[in-house]
């Protein structure tokens, strides 16, 4: 629940760290592979041996620039690496190579869209990006659970793997906005193949800056920084907790102390890190082992030309081109693989529908658009023009009701779909043509995910086809009316409810395969005549 803050405005900024999915480290050619035996991916450079020289990973530089472009940011032709000096066993050089005065990307923007729990649009806003910088990660420390063990253990496999630090401006005004920003950024990084975005393994984590200020006040309040969060829930809870804590302080006339906090996910509370005796003093200076970084305008231009369609652009296109609701458009564009699957299936559905249409011009076209009860286009669609949206909506429904429940995030990331996109397209086309019912679609989908059969094979094998043949349906109806002559007489004498019973009986007689609209039309015609 959002804390009520009538008297205060919440101001939030995020520093996100994303590990790049390069094959090798930022300044040496050691692998970045995760889960290796300790200290296997190390060499004199990342171990900080005297005399070893760092050489910049070209791919890491390109990926940083790519993100800058995607954020509509300013990608600098020249940038600089500096040393951030500190002693800690996770950093054998006693400094981190990072960027300070001249980052690779300065300025940018990321649009976010807020929705309520039902997926309805609330509002959109743009979060300004202050900078994106390249830097190296630190190693990993391990501590024994037993406090009497007076030693810690260091694994330097992760040491010097490339990170992007993405710093937002303090543009967010609620925990929900912060989480949405983090999600949008993660989606973008995965889309562009910059990072695997795997939060469990710590490939993506963030520090959250929170402060409060009196409403209407321009100057920022004193902020706290909560470090190293890697779950959406953690980010949300830590922010909520900080808001409540800081608000209580301010209301009682106390001051918020600018300090670094750690969030405990078990208690849902933040607490200050043991305050260091010395104020942080990193004594940055340009790394003399590395010269100025150059990323040419030509390189930037070719990156720009090769830029794929970004999630936000897809989101807007799905709304415009396929008339999807915001909720559906956001869902279909939420992952690159899912978006590809959705687009492929929709294209397939349209192709199949167009192919089939000329043959059944008169019978299907009129009925079918009326059958799309949830379609935004309504019933009087000029054939062709709105077929795309209608079919896309059907594809979208099949994906959200049938496919997604079978898909784990990992399988989605690896594009391991239980049912091929063509099959979804084919089912959508059949639904739209009124050849199958949504109940049949469910059954076909289940069979598809359990066997290697095609939609056509399953349909034939199980006789899953709606009966659209008027003569065949009339025969069924005639028999039902004869068998239930009394009910039919009831209807004629004004008992309107009897109709439902008769339709039910006829449907049963057809083994559920009668095309429902056609069936009820026939019954009505017969009873009224």
């Amino acid at each position, binding site marked *: 629940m959002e804390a009520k803050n009538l008297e205060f405005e919440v101001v939030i900024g995020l520093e996100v760290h994303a590990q790049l999915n*390069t*094959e*090798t480290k930022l300044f040496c*050619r*050691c*692998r970045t592979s995760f889960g290796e*035996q*300790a*200290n*296997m*991916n*190390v*060499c*004199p450079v990342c*171990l900080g*041996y005297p005399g070893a020289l760092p*050489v*910049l*990973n*070209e*791919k*890491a*530089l390109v990926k940083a620039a790519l993100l800058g472009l995607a954020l509509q940011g300013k990608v600098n032709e*020249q*940038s*600089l*690496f500096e040393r951030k*000096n500190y*002693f*800690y*066993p996770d950093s054998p050089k006693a400094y981190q190579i990072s960027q*300070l*005065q*001249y*980052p690779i990307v*300065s300025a940018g923007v990321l649009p976010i869209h807020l929705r309520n729990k039902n997926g309805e649009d609330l509002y959109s806003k743009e979060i300004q990006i202050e900078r994106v910088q390249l830097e190296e990660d630190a190693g990993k*420390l*391990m*501590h024994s659970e037993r406090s009497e*063990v*007076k*030693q*810690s*253990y*260091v*694994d*330097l496999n992760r040491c010097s793997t490339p990170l992007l630090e993405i710093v937002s401006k303090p543009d967010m005004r609620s925990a929900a906005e912060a989480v949405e920003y983090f999600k949008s950024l993660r989606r973008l990084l995965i889309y562009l193949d910059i990072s695997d975005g795997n939060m469990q393994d710590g490939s993506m984590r963030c520090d959250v800056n929170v402060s409060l200020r009196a409403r209407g006040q321009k100057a920022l309040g004193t902020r706290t920084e909560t470090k190293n969060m890697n779950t959406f829930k953690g980010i949300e809870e830590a922010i909520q907790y900080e808001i409540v804590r800081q608000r209580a302080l301010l209301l009682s006339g106390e001051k918020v102390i600018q300090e670094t906090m*750690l969030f405990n996910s078990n208690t849902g509370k933040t607490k200050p*890190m*043991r305050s260091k*005796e*010395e104020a942080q*003093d990193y004594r940055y200076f*340009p790394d*003399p082992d*590395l*010269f*100025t*970084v*150059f990323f040419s305008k030509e390189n930037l231009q070719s990156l720009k030309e090769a830029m794929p369609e970004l999630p936000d652009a897809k989101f807007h296109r799905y709304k415009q081109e396929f008339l999807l609701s915001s909720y559906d458009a956001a869902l279909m564009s939420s992952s690159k693989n899912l978006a590809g699957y959705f687009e492929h299936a929709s294209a397939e559905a349209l192709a199949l529908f167009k192919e089939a249409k000329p043959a059944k011009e008169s019978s299907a076209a009129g009925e079918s658009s009326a059958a799309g009860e949830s379609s935004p286009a309504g019933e009087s669609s000029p054939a062709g023009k709105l077929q795309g949206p209608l079919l896309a909506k059907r594809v979208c429904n099949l994906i959200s009701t049938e496919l997604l429940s079978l898909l784990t995030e990992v399988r989605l990331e690896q594009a391991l779909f239980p049912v091929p996109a063509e099959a979804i397209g084919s089912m959508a086309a059949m639904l739209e043509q009124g050849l199958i019912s949504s109940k049949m679609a469910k059954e076909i989908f289940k069979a598809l995910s359990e066997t290697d059969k095609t939609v056509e094979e399953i349909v034939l094998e199980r006789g899953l086809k709606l009966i659209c043949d008027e003569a065949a349906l009339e025969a069924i109806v005639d028999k039902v009316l004869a068998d239930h002559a009394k009910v039919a007489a009831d209807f004629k004498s004004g008992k309107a409810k009897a109709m439902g019973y008769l339709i039910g009986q006829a449907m049963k007689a057809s083994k559920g395969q009668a095309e429902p609209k056609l069936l009820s039309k026939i019954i009505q015609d017969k009873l009224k005549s």
Partner: protein
Amino acid sequence: MTPMTQNTSSKAKTPSLKMMEHLSKLSRIKLSDEEKQSFLSDLKHILVFVEKINEVDTENVQPLYSPVEAFTPTQKDVAVALNEQSMDHSKIAENAPNFQLGYFVVPRVIEE
């Protein structure tokens, strides 16, 4: 290049014993009282020299970060063969104060 952050070190603090202690702590170098005094006097002299440099008018001069007129070279993102890349743990152990079972062993450090 335009810097995103400004260096605000135009007015350096006068070196004091307290500053020497701070520096000694930051650089993890233990100094005796005598050493502190002697380094303090060195540091004062160094700063006088730096002040001299500050007198030069650099109004329209771009900062120089390296005397080498070159951009930093890059390498392809290709791992070197496993046997070349990975360091023998016995070699690492030779260069570490305490290396056991594949880990560097250090005095216990833990952030609460």
